[in-house]
């Protein structure tokens, strides 16, 4: 992690890509399932919550300018906590990404490749990811710089083109499934901002440490806008009852977009962008897993491990037998693990480390005075 340096824009791209791939695949659907027609309200609410969380993380990282969460855990309780946390993060990242990975493959199978075994579609996605990672972390980052503006532009174009199809009555009832599901249990939907976890790992990679605040808030703002636009698009085009029942509601909403008699079937373009997003997402994931693994095991060269982690990801993606298991894993299990690991454990480590640092500094000052 010591030799790689990335700029602020590249860091923003990393965090945004992860959140955007969640948004394009299932983010708005997860929000709409739990909140109903109050999805937009909930989106604003979780964006606000995310801002608060990001600010707390920024404040807690102020005293550890050149460290990530692994270094901080090592400072707090020694190497064992660093290794334990590193393994937990790697496992969580693999499990969480496997749902997006398998979801994408299933969607491709439903839409285009009905007669092909799912394993081949999964291989089709993972092989370019492995190849890109062979060229190094910088290559992955630079590819992202090209892909992210395309994704943002696509979301904007879909929103604008879909406006003639909007049915504004879909926003009623305004509180959807109730205040409790919109604001209390709905706050769990903050897990849509999956890029949060990379915020804990990105600090030592930044060229200028002062950019951390700019990076975190810019990426959050971009992700919030994209989430709002895509949720609005989905909510206003399709009825809520369809969004909760269908497996790819975003694709179905986009299928309905047309411009006059000559521009139809924009969903094909969207599918291309979707594929690019998942490639980006998985490339960043494997890169970061390699960085974390290098840190906890102190090995020099991680290139031989690229195929290992790609195979593990493929294996986990093959575990799910059907769509129901995938949805259960994504909506229930991993959402809760995200909340516990990212918001619970990581922030607790940061808080305790800050307290320890303060006590140490205080003792140092007393010792110096004496």
């Amino acid at each position: 992690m010591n030799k790689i340096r990335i700029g602020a824009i590249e860091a923003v791209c990393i965090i945004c890509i992860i959140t955007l791939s969640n948004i394009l695949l299932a983010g708005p659907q997860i929000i709409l399932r739990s909140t109903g027609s109050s999805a937009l309200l909930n989106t604003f609410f979780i964006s606000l919550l995310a801002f608060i969380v990001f600010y707390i993380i920024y404040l807690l990282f102020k005293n550890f300018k050149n460290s990530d969460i692994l270094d901080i855990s090592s400072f707090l309780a020694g190497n064992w906590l660093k290794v334990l946390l590193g393994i937990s993060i790697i496992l969580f990242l693999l499990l969480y990404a496997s749902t997006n990975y398998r979801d994408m493959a299933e969607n491709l199978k439903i839409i285009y490749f009905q007669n092909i075994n799912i394993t081949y579609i999964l291989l089709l996605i993972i092989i370019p990811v492995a190849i890109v990672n062979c060229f190094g972390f910088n290559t992955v980052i630079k590819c992202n710089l090209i892909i992210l503006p395309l994704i943002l532009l696509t979301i904007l174009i879909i929103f604008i083109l879909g406006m003639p199809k909007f049915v504004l009555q879909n926003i009623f009832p305004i509180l959807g499934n109730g205040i409790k599901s919109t604001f209390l249990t709905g706050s769990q939907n903050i897990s849509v901002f999956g890029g949060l976890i990379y915020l804990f790992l990105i600090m030592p990679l930044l060229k200028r440490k002062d950019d951390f605040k700019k990076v975190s808030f810019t990426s959050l703002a971009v992700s919030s806008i994209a989430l709002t636009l895509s949720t609005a698009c989905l909510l206003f085009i399709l009825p809520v009852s369809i969004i909760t029942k269908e497996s790819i509601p975003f694709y179905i909403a986009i299928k309905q977009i047309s411009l006059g008699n000559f521009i139809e079937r924009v969903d094909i373009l969207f599918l291309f962008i979707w594929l690019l997003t998942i490639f980006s997402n998985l490339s960043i994931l494997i890169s970061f897993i390699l960085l974390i693994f290098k840190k906890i095991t102190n090995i020099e060269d991680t290139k031989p491990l690229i195929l290992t982690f790609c195979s593990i990801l493929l294996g986990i993606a093959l575990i799910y037998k059907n769509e129901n298991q995938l949805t259960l894993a994504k909506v229930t299990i991993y959402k809760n693990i995200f909340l516990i690991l990212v918001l619970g454990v990581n922030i607790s480590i940061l808080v305790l480390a800050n307290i320890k640092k303060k006590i140490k500094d205080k003792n140092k000052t007393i010792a110096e005075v004496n």
Partner: protein
Amino acid sequence: MKKTFLYLIIAFLIILYSLLIIENGTSYRSLDNYAYCMALGFDKGENSKFKISFQIPINSSGGSSSGSSEQSTSSIVNSVECETIDSGINLMNAYISQSINLSHCKAIVISEELANEGIADIIYTLFNKVEISSQALVLISRVDANELLNKSVSSLETASARYFDTSINSAYTTGYVDKITLSNFFSALNDNFCQPLASLASVNSKNSQTTTNSRC
């Protein structure tokens, strides 16, 4: 430099291998193997649940365009009786020895008799088909859908593929009809603040010409 070249070769071989796997996994079809269906018609079957009619255009190589009787042979309408839409498509594939492709389907005509029994399952099945465009018109026919498709000719439009596109244009100038697409109908079916609507179509029997025109 050598390593980069080696990686590029490996990448190329892997991609080639992946393409070969996918190539074997799908059947390779050209345009000649597809029969593009312009319109679908649904009637109540005599021996089965549905009688599905497929209006398929015929490529005419001749240039003569005199007489409306030659325009009526620019498409054929074939019907099958079946229990489900997918089994109907399979039967038609076997009958015409080509694969029915619904990606250019411009109209879905449902007879009034069948519509009275409820068409939610037809609409759901069609909407979930990736091939069918959600901009296809939904029409309810007073006569049999088969008859409507057979007698649907336009004196102004020569290309049968464009007939259903232009036939509903009067929706923009008069208030007699509305352009209801599959997506509109499907949304209205599931919305809790409105009911689904569709335009009513029939064959004009009062016309004294040899070929009859259909009006919506």
